[in-house]
């Protein structure tokens, strides 16, 4: 799976991090994607993060 984040759009609300802390870490300087190609077991959480991002900043691809 591939994860990308549009940092211009990201507001740092941290919703992705609350859903999938394995991959998303929001720090003081902004959002960090800890694994850009996470394992497929995280698929459900990743999709949850993508859907729930209030600024639609996250894209997840299989």
């Amino acid at each position, binding site marked *: 799976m591939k994860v990308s984040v549009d940092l211009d759009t990201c507001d740092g609300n*941290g*919703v992705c991090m609350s859903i999938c802390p394995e991959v998303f870490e929001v720090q003081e300087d902004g959002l960090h994607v800890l694994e850009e190609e996470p394992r497929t077991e995280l698929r459900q959480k990743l*999709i949850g993060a993508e*859907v*729930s991002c*209030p*600024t639609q900043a996250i894209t997840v691809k299989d």
Partner: protein
Amino acid sequence: MPSSQLREIVVVGGGVAGTRAAETLRQDGYDGALTIVGAERHAPYHRPPLSKKLLTGKVHRAGVDLAPQFELDARVLRGASALKLDMSSRTVHLRDDDRELSLQFDGLVIASGAVPREWPGGPVPDGILVLRTVEDCLAIRERLRSRPRIVVVGGGFIGAEVAASCRSLGLDVVLVERATSPLLAALGKELAPRWAELHRQHGVDLRVGVGVDGFVGDDHVEAVRLTDGSQVPAELVIIGLGVTPATDWLGGSGLRVDDGVVCDATGIAEGSTADVPVVAAGDVARWWHPLYERHLRTEHWDDAGRQGAAAARTLLAGPDRAEAYDDLPYFWSDQYDVKVQLLGVPTDYDEIDIVEGDPGAWEFVAAYGRGGRTVAVLGTIPNRVYAYRDTIAKGAQFPPNRPD
């Protein structure tokens, strides 16, 4: 893997909790019939921007749609409202446009959300609006174009955010709050006044310790009458008096409703049985939280989505194998250039301490304690609250050590 024999699941609610529940059912392999009953006419959308960027026009309508993840194999009714739940016949009665119909289920997700409190004093002149749905937001936005003088009634998060959004557009705003400060109930008496000051600094005419007595105006509102006898001129009034869980349709169902659908820690509704499994999630639900050892009903975007997913997993797993959900409630609020984030539940805290930074510079972290344990952390340093997740989840001593 789903062990259940469920073949006919109905999800009442088309917001984030219901949507995430439906998606999770499919993701987890449920392949029976699935019906979503949504009260609103739209595909699901993000509610948080309605008091912020959508209201100010920083994002457009399309920018708040919930990104569809996959073709959800479900029958979706929109503009449909649930009227009654009959547990004995496992039926939800509803109205879809002008027709009434009944849906059979063998598993039910209640995610009917909450409805905003209207002005309790009866009929009001035109120009007095609530903000809950995207239509509400766009209607207010349309009226902002004539640059009205605005009174916001209620200093909770919606009222405070609306006031900030309107000020950022340069409009005159009076914010009326009956308590001694906006956000008092949410943030507590030590910190809430800082937000009062923030609003004052940004030019909000803040009236605290006073309520609204009524409205002046025949056709259109002209002024708001306060309980101290004064009048505040207004061409637009936004009511932010909170919401009540949408449980009217559950009367007589046998489910326990007490400020929401009372649920156990897995989301199973009290009063349901293994034969008629019912779970609830989101604004309408009050789940037992193992850490806080009480039933909690939150109105947070983030919680609603995560609860929806958890409720769906519970439904599929069945009561014996369902897992307790003990995630920490989380919300954020944007007012002016300050983002506040709060992790955990500060209700009934007995201690509070600034644990990092400088409140004067709006860069700080505060911890709330109860009975010697850290129960919640608030921060305006972006995302610093997450560093305290384990601190709160483990009930660490108060004041907490500063994590890395």
